[in-house]
């Protein structure tokens, strides 16, 4: 099954393409930061709930089902091989030989790994389902030459602040080891964060050159047409009397060439057609001054969603800072001990 855009008007569909790209990025970071299976599980369910309102559940599940097996394997590895020395031992998988110990921590981490991977993948899926590829490309394309200084400075400051907090919470020891006065330490950390934010912002604002953006857009539009064409060609060859799926290997290669040549020619023809079509419609008029009908615009929902995601990230980091990042694990161990 292809993962492709599905039309709709759900909450997820209404979000700006950039928000959804950010959603994927933040979901990845969150999945790295948060190691607690229960919190991660809740987050996963939350994402799934949002997703199920955007596309039909059948469709959503169909594409996720394949991944369950893969991620369960990952979990198994985690369960079998995450065995720190002081962990709570349960049993051996191969009892006679005392091979492969299974521990409480291993199981808990395993479950967490399952949800962490799944959340990242789900966020990609949701992004692709609910955003037209054109919008995604547009989000990466340089759209305007005029710069809005105020909002750019604002973004840099905000992101810088965020980085500073993250850094202070995540690496308190490393920072306190810096050979500087305590006030200076924070200033240095803040400055570094600000610089990083600036670089990111510059890279982000630069974006792809418009030629490349348009080319990508055209590419997305062509995929569907080419696959239709491939179907037509396959049918034409069947009707000419080729057994399209012969058992004999040599024949199969022959059939493949019979399909590949016309498909190859059709693709060439299509690219020729496209170049003529876009030239005739003024593609090389003045590409740097190109404008866009589609508009990416943040609404209140976007700000709300982004704030929520950032809050989650900060909460996760705070938990780690307080030493209770693995809350469930600690609780269970205490129950067992108590």
């Amino acid at each position, binding site marked *: 099954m292809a993962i492709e855009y599905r039309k709709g008007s759900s909450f997820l569909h209404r979000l700006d393409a950039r928000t959804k790209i950010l959603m994927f990025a933040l979901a990845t970071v969150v999945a790295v930061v948060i190691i607690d299976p229960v919190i991660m599980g809740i987050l996963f369910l939350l994402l799934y709930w949002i997703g199920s309102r955007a596309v039909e559940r059948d469709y959503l599940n169909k594409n996720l089902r394949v991944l369950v097996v893969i991620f369960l394997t990952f979990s198994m590895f985690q369960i079998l091989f995450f065995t720190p020395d002081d962990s709570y031992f349960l049993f051996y998988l191969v009892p006679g030989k005392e091979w492969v110990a299974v521990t409480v921590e291993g199981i808990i981490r395993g479950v967490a790994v399952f949800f962490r991977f799944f959340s990242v993948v789900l966020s990609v899926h949701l992004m692709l389902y609910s955003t037209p590829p054109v919008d995604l490309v547009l989000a990466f394309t340089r759209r305007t030459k005029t710069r809005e200084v105020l909002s750019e400075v604002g973004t840099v400051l905000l992101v810088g602040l965020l980085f500073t907090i993250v850094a202070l919470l995540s690496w308190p020891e490393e920072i306190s080891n810096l050979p500087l006065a305590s006030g200076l330490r924070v200033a240095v950390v803040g400055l570094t964060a600000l610089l990083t934010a600036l670089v990111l912002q510059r890279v982000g604002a630069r974006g792809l050159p418009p030629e490349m953006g348009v080319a990508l857009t055209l590419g997305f539009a062509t995929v569907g047409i080419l696959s239709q064409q491939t179907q037509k060609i396959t049918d034409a060859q069947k009707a000419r009397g*080729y057994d399209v799926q012969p058992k004999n290997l040599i024949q199969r290669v022959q059939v493949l060439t019979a399909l590949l040549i*016309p498909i190859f020619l059709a693709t060439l023809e299509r690219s020729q057609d496209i170049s003529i079509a*876009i030239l005739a419609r003024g593609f090389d008029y003045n590409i740097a001054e190109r404008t866009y009908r589609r508009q990416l615009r943040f609404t209140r929902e976007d700000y709300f969603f982004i704030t929520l995601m950032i809050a989650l990230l900060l909460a996760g980091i705070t938990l780690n800072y307080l030493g209770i990042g693995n809350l469930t694990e600690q609780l269970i161990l205490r129950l067992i001990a108590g």
Partner: protein
Amino acid sequence: MSVDINFQNVTFTYEGAQLPAVKDVDLTVTEGEIILITGPAGSGKTTLCSCINGLVPHFHEGELQGDVFVRKYNTRTSRVGGLASIVGMVFQDPESQLVTNSVADEVAFGPENFGVPREEINQRVTQALLATRLEGYDEREPHTLSGGEQQACVIAAVYAMQPEIYVMDEPLANLDPEGKAQVLRVVVEIAKERGKTLILVEHALEEVLPLVERVIVMNKGEIVRDGPVEEILEAGDIPFVFTRPPVVRLGEKFGLKPLPISSAEFYAQFQSRYAAEISPFEVREKEPIPEGEQVIKIEGISFSYDKSANHKGEVLKDISLSIAAGEMVAILGRNGSGKTTLIRHIIGLLQPHKGNVVVLNKDVAQTPTYELAKNIGFCFQNPSHQIVSFNVRDEIIFGLKAHGIKPEEYESRIRESLEFVNMLDYIDAEVFDLGKGQKQRIALASVLSLRPEILIVDEPTTGQDPRMAQEIFEILQRLNEAGTTVLIITHQIDYAAAYARRAIVLSEGSILYDGSIPELLMKKELMQASALEMPETTKLASLLSPHGVPPWLVTLQELDQAISKLVVAANGN
């Protein structure tokens, strides 16, 4: 009036070509003119159009002599993008010009390139969709539209660029009659309303002639005629180059002036000239439809692309029909009526969810397609989809090999089949060097080399000039006379009527009519309901029917004879 386009002794030779594609062309077009350019395939019409918007010499490489000026710009020194802001170009195949994922994006593409501000782009999109009657199509995907809608979308996209000159290269060629009517309406409205220059390349003279003021006829790269419509029509036919519509030719023969273009004009003039008396209605013997062995038996089939149990949106609904050996049957109906879906069942490319199909005493559900293909030849609409070799001879051998024909027979079969399609001279030609009409005939030849008992052809004449279309129908007729059962999907009811005897009309997946074509031509409501355009000659015959002309006549010769009789009768009194 200012000059819009000026060709000064222009000759262009494509790279690698021996002969120039356009030769010694001098042409001046003034603002607001509406011009038809016509001529056989390969006469340089498309190249001429490409000269106007700068694709020649900037995209197509070759040698350009002379100068082309568009307004004050020399195309040699202007960029295609710059010229595109003056010249809006629409090409033949709408699908190949649609490059984005939604109709609104498509229309916005040109203005975006010109750097038009967003608010204005949105205004222009709305206007363009309104002008082309595509309101509400904004978010539709272009490749899911019908042919006529697609072409309208392309025209909308050009309209939104607000060009001064519209150049349309066979915009009607790939459309069914309904789509043609839709696009023609749009084209005329746009040209007339905005008062812009319009250059229209077309073979469909009957439809286009009433709309234009000036006609240019091209042959072998040269302009052979150029003048006002009446003048060009009075100058007569040029064999193999310019054939006037039958009604015009009849008008000339019977001395009507000015020459009529439509059947109504003909009739009005004819009446005032010959006060023909009403003679008794003579009914022509209906040719019996041959009763041979039933080679195709379709019993109550229904089909839906929805594979779930409830089969939503059936494309075929309970269709039954049988076709006897030696018949030639035309399958008619508007786009999307299920014609192609139906014929795909005959060779097992699709299987019905209800009913069964038996072909040559084989149950299609039990027999694999490659087995059926031994006796059933199948030609697709686009020959490029079935040609797999780079060379004509290899192409035919490929099919023979797949069916296990003995190598000794190859040469004789290749020659026989190429001779049948009049392509024997091309036996060693490269497929790349062939035009679309020739490719179509090669595809046909490679099917014929297997000596099929049944031949199924899906719209073999789309986008071809009248002469090639006629040639293909003649080939099919010869095959039929040699005993092959022929099924043909077509929109060209005039050819169908001239060559086939039986017609099956599909509408929304059901059979609306199954019987002889002359009888079909008399059922006006049914024809209209299926968007079947009555040939202009038949319209004339039907106008003349009170005078005793059979209303189902289609060909020029038949009509000529009938009217001659009337004239003799009128003069006799």
